């Protein structure tokens, strides 16, 4: 479904990714792990069009993503969350999730001017969709709160909801459980699994919590200094000697 072939990316003299190849199958949960600064986020940024790779190709369902701008990649069916929550402050939880519906809506000043005859029906129809996702992720209690006042764990959930609202086929989660306690983590895992089942998703999951990775991923890739040091079925990959060496620091 998503394939990277020998993807490389430099920042100045720093080689953040070198010859990274991976192949994600439809319907699997694919883990991406590695120590800090190993290039996980950079790989995601390459896939989603923010830092196009300088070498190699990225393919998604037959489209080459290399020269495609981020908003086009979104409409191809890839949604993501950010390592540092990137919600729109000052907007309510509901409006943030409604923004996830952007690619399906037809925003225009004229439609807004004739709201009662034109835009209202669309707003209400998409509100229905958003309520389904609010239901799925149990966000009812904070629906009308401004996003900046709710706890971080909840914000991460709202970001997941916004990504799901776009009805993606591929969901990329960049450390969705960072900074969470055990209970919040378990909730999050549950929500990811539920969403995957309900919406028929393929998931690329970046996480530092190895217990989570081993528990829910089918396969995984381990990066270190921008290079793939192990890949395969998840338990094999994370127990590879090179991985243990990389984490312990030799």
């Amino acid at each position: 479904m998503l394939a990277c072939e020998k993807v490389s990316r430099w920042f100045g003299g720093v080689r953040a990714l070198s010859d990274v190849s991976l192949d994600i199958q439809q319907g699997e949960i694919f883990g991406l792990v590695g120590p800090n600064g190993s290039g996980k986020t950079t790989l995601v940024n390459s896939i989603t069009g923010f830092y196009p790779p300088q070498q190699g190709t990225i393919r998604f369902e037959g489209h080459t993503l290399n020269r495609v701008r981020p908003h086009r990649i979104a409409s191809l069916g890839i949604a993501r969350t950010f390592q540092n929550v990137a919600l729109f402050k000052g907007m309510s939880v509901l409006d943030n999730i409604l923004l996830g519906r952007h690619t399906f809506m037809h925003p225009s000043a004229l439609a807004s001017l004739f709201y009662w005859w034109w835009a209202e029906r669309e707003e209400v129809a998409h509100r229905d969709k958003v309520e389904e996702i609010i239901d799925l992720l149990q966000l009812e209690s904070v629906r009308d709160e401004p996003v900046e006042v709710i706890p971080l764990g909840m914000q991460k959930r709202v970001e997941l909801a916004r990504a799901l609202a776009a009805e993606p086929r591929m969901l990329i989660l960049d450390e969705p459980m960072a900074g969470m306690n055990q209970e919040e983590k378990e909730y999050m895992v549950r929500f990811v699994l539920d969403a995957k089942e309900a919406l028929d998703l393929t998931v690329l999951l970046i996480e530092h919590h190895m217990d989570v990775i081993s528990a829910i991923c089918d396969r995984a890739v381990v990066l270190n200094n921008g290079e793939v040091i192990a890949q395969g079925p998840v338990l094999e990959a994370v127990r590879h000697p090179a991985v243990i060496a990389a984490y312990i620091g030799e």
Partner: protein
Amino acid sequence: MFYRLSGVYHTRYSATRQLWPIPADRWQIGAVAVLALAAPLYMSDLYLSSYLLPWLIFSAATLALTLLMGLAGQLHFGFGAVMAIGAYTSIHLARAGVPFELALLAAGLMAALIGCLFGAAALRVKGLYLVMATLAMQFLVDWVIVNVNAISGGAVATLQTPQVSYLFVPVASLTARYYLALLWAAIVTLLVLNIKRTSFGRALVAVRDKDFAAAVIGVNIFKYKLLAFFTSSFLGGVTGSILAFCFYQAVTPSQFNFDVTIQLVAMALVGGLGSVIGGFLGAGFVLLAPIVLLNLIARMTDAGWLNVSTTLMAHIPLMLYGAMIIGFLLFEPLGLAKIYDNARKYFLVWPFRHTQS
């Protein structure tokens, strides 16, 4: 008391998204609408023509600007020029016999096109650089208008607006001009209010706040920045032409020079960026404050307490805008709208002290 959220239950999504969910707000709006509609009946011509009329038109201009600066977050220091383009386009078309309705539309389109041209700079630059790009627009447009006689009729010339009619009503009497301005202000108000609660407004705010996060959910950043320039400049162009036809009844370059641009920015900032009620409050404040202050100083000089030269007098309003902009940026960046909102929320929960939103 009368502001109460409790006891207001919505059973449809459309009802929760209405403009004024609280009954007391609806009553207020209704009262203001009645007062505005009946103004020619109870207000003297002097007040109507020299206070209420310009206030309405400048409020519309401020709303157009706040759509761009507040919602979309694109600084614009050439809005006087945008209005000038609209005014000159419509006056030449009207003189050539084009119906006024069409001339207004053309004014908007012309302002939008040229506005987008300079707004295209916004695709690449942000902040101060955008201020420079739009300032360049102001001076370039000013220069072209003054120096191309076909447009201005000469550097110090004043073009009288021709006799036109709007929807078969001649735009000549004060009452007709007032109602046209009121209609336009109402349209712009509803437009901006509706933009703020629909997908268009959300996309603009998303691009303003976190452009990368906007892109990742499929918002085309370039497109929405340009659309913001287009919409705002269109409204600005039409407002410029309304200002010419309804208020000045003439067009001359100085009506839209840099001073006016600064005045508009001050209105948007003082009122509260992105706020509709703030647009009205800011425009009213900036229009009235210098008058009140000048009267005060004139009285004081007459009484012999102060000695102010006439040249200094002329500069006082500008100094005042500067001080107001700085003051509001420092102490209440959300402007008069925030002060209004605080008062409203106080009554909303009275006799309790806190609100949650």
